[in-house]
């Protein structure tokens, strides 16, 4: 009585170094299931540069190139060019970066690659801070969150950067959000991306129990709540303009249900939560408008 129908083949092995309940580990597992073994991955500095395992070991069954922090997109473009010139156009090139490597330090190379419409799949697995270095804020850290560089007394007071809108503005063929809580949706999107030529950007929500101060077994529950509260809606944008909403919660749950599961939001007052709710409602309304305008 399956609930999710995942491809059987694993292109990853256990023994990797992810923390307990790591969303990023799941994200990779699903993505490689969708892409298959004819895939080359490049990973900049991020949790995954450790997760994969220390030299001389690797947990992936596909080739992996560790690249510099800000170069995921450029490295992928290079690998793509190297393969294409050898006639290996059927091999998927996957750039696999965290939110820091995407939203912050890597955005230039990403923008460049997207503008050139490089034939790569760029996945940002988003755990909303620099987790590998010990939970420092990134521009993907949501408003109100504690991190080690945004202490409770001075929590992050700017909203999360809208990376999806930025990527859509490049008018690349495919941009999508996905979540480890919705593996079938995630896999469908990666498979879809695989069959599109050009730059594909998939923004995967990947909870980090260590950094979010939640229980390791909360990963999936929180992922679901993120969608059900519209904190992290699941949608696609084709060719930069065509918005498709994938999951519309029947009743949008209050954000407090989402926030209260995570220690990083524990300090928030009711008033602050109300502000966050208003912002989420506003962004949700905007998203719905965009999705309906087509």
């Amino acid at each position: 009585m399956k609930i999710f129908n995942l491809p059987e083949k694993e292109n990853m092995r256990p023994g990797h170094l992810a923390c307990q309940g790591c969303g990023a580990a799941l994200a990779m597992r699903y993505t490689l299931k969708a892409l298959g073994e004819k895939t080359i991955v490049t990973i900049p500095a991020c949790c995954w540069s450790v997760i994969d395992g220390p030299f001389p070991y690797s947990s992936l069954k596909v080739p992996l190139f560790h690249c510099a922090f800000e170069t995921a997109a450029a490295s992928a473009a290079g690998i793509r060019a190297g393969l294409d010139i050898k006639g290996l156009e059927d091999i998927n090139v996957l750039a696999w970066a965290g939110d820091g490597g995407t939203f912050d330090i890597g955005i230039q190379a990403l923008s460049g690659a997207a503008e050139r419409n490089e034939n790569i799949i760029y996945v940002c697995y988003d755990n909303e801070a620099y987790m590998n270095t010990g939970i420092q804020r990134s521009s993907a850290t949501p408003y109100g969150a504690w991190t080690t560089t945004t202490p409770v007394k001075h929590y992050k007071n700017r909203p999360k950067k809208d990376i999806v809108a930025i990527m859509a503005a490049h008018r690349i063929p495919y941009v999508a959000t996905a979540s480890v809580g919705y593996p079938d949706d995630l896999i469908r999107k990666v498979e879809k991306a695989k069959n599109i030529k050009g730059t594909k950007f998939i923004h995967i929500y990947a909870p980090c129990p260590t950094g979010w101060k939640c229980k390791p077994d909360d990963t999936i529950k929180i992922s679901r709540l993120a969608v059900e509260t519209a904190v992290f809606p699941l949608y696609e944008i084709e060719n930069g303009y065509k918005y498709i909403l994938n999951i519309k919660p029947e009743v949008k749950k209050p954000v407090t249900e989402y926030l209260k599961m995570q220690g990083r939001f524990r300090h928030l007052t009711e008033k602050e939560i109300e502000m966050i709710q208003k912002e989420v409602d506003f962004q949700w309304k905007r998203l719905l408008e965009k999705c309906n305008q087509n």
Partner: protein
Amino acid sequence: MKKVITGNHAVSYGALLSRVEVIAAYPITPQTQVVELLSEFCAEGKLKAKFVKVESEHSAMATCIGASAAGARAFTATSAQGLALMHELLHWAAGGRLPIVLANINRAMAPGWSIWTDQNDSLSQRDTGWMQIYCESNQEVLDSVIQGYKIAEQVYIPLMLVLDAFVLSHTSEIVDIPSQEQVDRYLPPFKPKYKLDVNDPHAFGGLLGPDHYMEIRYLLQKDMERAMEITKKADIEFKEIFGRSYGVIEAYKCEDAEIIMVTSGTVTSTARTVIDKLRERDKRVGLLKIRMFRPFPSKDIKNVLLKAKKVLVVDRNISYGLGGIFFEEIKSVLYYEDKHIPIFGFITGLGGRDVTPNILEEMIEYVETHDKPEEPILWKGVKL
């Protein structure tokens, strides 16, 4: 086929004939013509390469790294600020043992803005693990691109060839452009031992603990040492096919020289005329051109310099707080020798200021009239 071309175009022709497969570059004066001509080669189909027109030098090198890791022959060209921006990735390419060839047009570092030549940009990359070759002529530039791949791909170490801004980059000279057939004979296709291959998957460059890091770096140094002999061999082979060779150094009229002037880059050509002129006056002076800076040809240099009574080094660069970089390297090469040779370190020509024959002559005069330098750095031409 002989053609009158600029140094920049010599780079482009070198890349064309080397059948580079991936080019990733970002425009910067005075390198732009390199990539402009390569763009045309690609557009015309003369060169079957993927030219990735990246948004920065940083991405240019990252892209070359990716391409090289995927098994393609990768090429880029840059200058000054662009090279500095690449810095992190120069380490990455060398540490990744990826035989990329990069042409750097020597240009002074800002601020203030300068587009004119000096060597501080490339010499600042001394410790990145790249090989460096300093060229004197446009012919040497073209030939060095081809030789560059020949060397780099044998030792899996990237190679940077360096030419002076404007003096070479924008100056036209007669260049003998070899035939593709000749080059193909000399330079086989790139077939790396390991590459990103879905049929033989490996992770490249994973977390390296203290238990392994040193060994990996030791092996890089060992290959750097090996590169010296491989370079010489490549040069000999080159001569067999193309009739030209350059050596890792060139000793010009040094056999009986009492004073040897050490130069690199285009200053060498100027120095040649000065040496010739002084020889006509029966002065026993010679010239040592250093072509290969990394690996540093210590033995070859020693063999030449130990015959001299005095040595003077012309540096178009400076390591702030110490002195001229070639000067310092040469001093250290001679340190263990019993024979003590006074060495004079001149710094001149920074930021593209002309290094005229007069300046070089004045330097020799100074050396002739002094037993040892009065200052650790002998500045030549400072107007303060």
